[in-house]
């Protein structure tokens, strides 16, 4: 018998997800014309959620019963604030929220510059041509294809004023 019960946090999280999904599936309104036993809008979600719930539960139980040496878990010591992915996610969210304000081109130039500087030390002479060039070339290509990209609220307001 294993002396320590191991918890697979990913399986537990997915079990919670499928539970929530099944709860929401139960809230789907029933078509007023449907008869008992009909294939309603919630039938397939029950199947999908039930499948996932069963698999997550089995995974959780299997891992809990498995001896520690057979069930290596990735270390949980990872310091979240040091993870470069989280830093990039913050930069990404700022970038997306700035697309409307600064416009696609300027926001993209800012994102590529900050993103590359955040990822590693890149010399400005290498970084700038790529960070400025790529969005500008893309904008030019889109313009050629008659795809309109909004210049952003700030630039639009300024253009209206002048």
């Amino acid at each position, binding site marked *: 018998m294993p002396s320590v019960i191991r918890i697979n*946090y990913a399986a537990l999280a997915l079990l919670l997800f499928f539970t929530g*999904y099944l709860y*929401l599936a139960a809230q789907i309104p029933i078509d007023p014309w449907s008869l008992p*036993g009909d294939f309603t809008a919630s039938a397939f979600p029950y199947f999908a*959620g039930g499948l996932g719930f069963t698999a997550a539960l089995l995974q959780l139980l299997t891992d809990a019963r498995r001896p520690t040496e057979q069930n290596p878990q990735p270390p949980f010591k990872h310091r979240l604030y040091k993870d470069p992915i989280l830093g*990039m996610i913050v930069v990404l*969210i700022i970038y*997306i929220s700035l697309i409307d304000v600064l416009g696609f081109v300027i926001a993209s130039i800012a994102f590529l510059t900050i*993103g590359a500087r955040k990822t590693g030390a890149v010399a400005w002479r*290498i970084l700038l041509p790529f960070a400025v060039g790529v969005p500008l070339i893309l904008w030019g290509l889109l313009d050629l294809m008659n795809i309109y990209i909004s210049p952003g609220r700030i630039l639009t307001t300024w253009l209206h004023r002048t």
Partner: protein
Amino acid sequence: MIDGLLLGLSTALTFSNLLFVAAGCLIGMLIGMLPGLGPISAIALMIPISYNLEPASGMILLAGVYYGAIFGGSTSAILINAPGVAGTVATAFDGYPMARNGHAGKALAVAAYASFFGGTIAVLLLMISAPALADLSLAFQSPEYTLMMLLGLSLVASFSEPGQYLKAVMMTAIGLCLSTVGTDLASGIPRFTFGRMDLIDGLSFLMIAMATFALTEALMMLRAGQATQTVIPIIPSQALRLESREIRSIAPVISRSAVSGFLIGVLPGAGATIASFIAYGFEKIMAKAPIPPFGKGNLKGLAAPESANNAACTGSFVPLLTLGIPGSGTTAILLGALLAYGIQPGPRLYLDEPTVFWSIVVSMYIGNLILLFLNLPMIPIFAKLLNIPRAILAPLIIFFSLTGVYLVSFNLFDLYLMVTFALIAVWLRSRTFPMAPLLLGFILGDMLEDNLRRSLIISDGNLSYLLDRPISLLLVTLIVLALTAPLARKVIRGSLNARS
């Protein structure tokens, strides 16, 4: 078949389509060469561009990207021991030792020739088998389609890595769950929309594909850091030549690996990875005291997986084009692209859209030719791409992933959703959850629900209707076998271990 072939040739050989094949192969190769970025990411990045093209041209471009990415993956496997895709892992076994021994050029040439001939044999097999299978599948109705989709999903799970079976099932279920977001087409009832208009039409498959593959790969690249940057060996162009003795020794290997690779590729879920490992294992068993040994730079050890993985890629088009069932994450994304064009793959594709069907087939062959004659001599130049600092590469891939989704919908909500999904995908991937079953579940979800509903309406809600027809019964048997295969594997392995 001859008429179809001529039709395909007349479409694929137009100047613009030749340009699309060439561009697809080139872009696919460049993206596939980057470690971590496979054909799914490459195709996902190219889909927004293909939306503006004619269906045949768009599919020609994407098929070229697929081939190019597999070939590019082999290049990074050989040069820096970093397979771009799982299908090229076996290529690195002997390819990388060859490169380290100063034969990088020869290894790349063998990979290119093996891919070309493997692909060519597979295209011939596809031309013969696809129409026959399409004719047979005309007998398919809703119950058979329902079961065929369930078979595809169960095979994907059963072919997963040892110990990952339940994880693959969970990911498939998440994909199915995500496919239910939006308005139910039969009843008009919104599901899981939380009152948001942005979710009424459901989640975009491009957004899901980009979030779970391209964006996730780029984010994981950040964690790998600069330490993984490798110096690429210099390859003189004359080093790409092979001696006739070497060609004679690898020719039979390439032929048999192509046939086995194609047959394995046809099976949903099996794909290029299994095909390349089986071909490599078979040649290793067949060889008697090989010099150099397998794993130390043996030419046969390089030619077998390369031929098999290319043939398997072509093989994976058989269920996609004839049954409308994708057998892998890559063909799932191609199915998504076909559906976006308003084309329903399946037996009717061969009859209703012969131009699309045959031009894809012909373009595969042309793609192989282009990879051999245009891309191979340029490998020494392309290989320099591997020297691009990750600090530039990762933000660039992130930028193109976001831009691809933004330019299709112009909806910032999609971008926020994409970032959220990517963050979850990164976490799941770091806990060894596979992403391809999720994509497959997402794409098959709608069709599965639709066919299941239709079957149950016809049968008046009686599930036993699914077993009433001979083909259905065969498919149910296969599903049961696929679901029990991992358990049987475990039992057999356990009894073998006990005996030893």
